[in-house]
């Protein structure tokens, strides 16, 4: 099987109120060196062997997994995964 690990992040310039709250909380805990935090998503897909991974995953990200108006995505592929 093929494992695809997808990271989805907010585009630079898009406000991230959640990230801002995380940053402020870290600052409150004493981590004053944290200047910025952005919160994104991580997904793992398990695909059938023989899948045209790049073509299919790009399409899935564009159609559903990410919203291209506000989000960017990148992914890594592991072939020959057994479970």
């Amino acid at each position, binding site marked *: 099987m093929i494992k695809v690990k997808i990271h989805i992040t907010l585009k630079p310039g898009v*406000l991230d*109120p959640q990230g801002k709250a995380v940053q402020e909380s870290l600052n409150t805990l004493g981590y004053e060196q944290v200047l910025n935090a952005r919160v994104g998503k991580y997904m793992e897909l398990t695909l059938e062997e023989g899948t045209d991974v790049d073509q299919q995953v790009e399409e899935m990200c564009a159609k559903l997994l990410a919203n291209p108006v506000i989000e960017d995505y990148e992914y890594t592929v592991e072939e020959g995964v057994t479970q």
Partner: protein
Amino acid sequence: MKFAVIVFPGSNCDRDMYFAAKDALGADAELVWYQSANLENYDAVLLPGGFSYGDYLRTGAIASTSHIVTEIKQHAAKGKPVLGVCNGFQILLESGLLPGAMLRNKNLKFMCHFEKLVVENNQTMFTSDYREKEVISLPIAHGEGNYYCDEATLLKLKENNQIVFTYANNPNGSVSDIAGIVNEEGNVLGMMPHPERAVEAILGGADGLKLFKSVLTNWREAYVAGA
């Protein structure tokens, strides 16, 4: 005139929407389960608020992949009215019927109260009963109503007069105080505030009723001979 109120798993303003169309407005209306096949017998489509699919992935994202959205696109392509409120607006954005996207409210809070809105465009089939720049009061109830679009899209929205409602006191961080927009053709309206929750005095106000009345009036003028 017959309205379809689309019910998704997780919709929770569907009954309010039905009540607004059926009882407050006095038109024909039916609740239509999202797996139902076609919308041909309906004149207008109402997408209610709520939390379709529990807001999984992104608000409105999962609902936007359902078959009924293809039907709604065909309905919209015929120039028939489509109104999406709150989660309904989010579904319209995710399905590409309207431009832009929703972000979490700037203050990260779920907010539920009346807000003052300005009617920026009263030349649409949804707002013709309002005066231009009329200030109305409608309830909001959302955690993700912070409308976002890029500069180019915003410019286009402004040039085409697609911004229909703005907040008088922006509660959520939306760009240009946007509370509601229409598509270029003017027959698809998405808005975060809830007109269906303000259709009679006992609900705290009736400013939302004019929106439904506008739809009915314009439909009659277009389709009923001698109206």
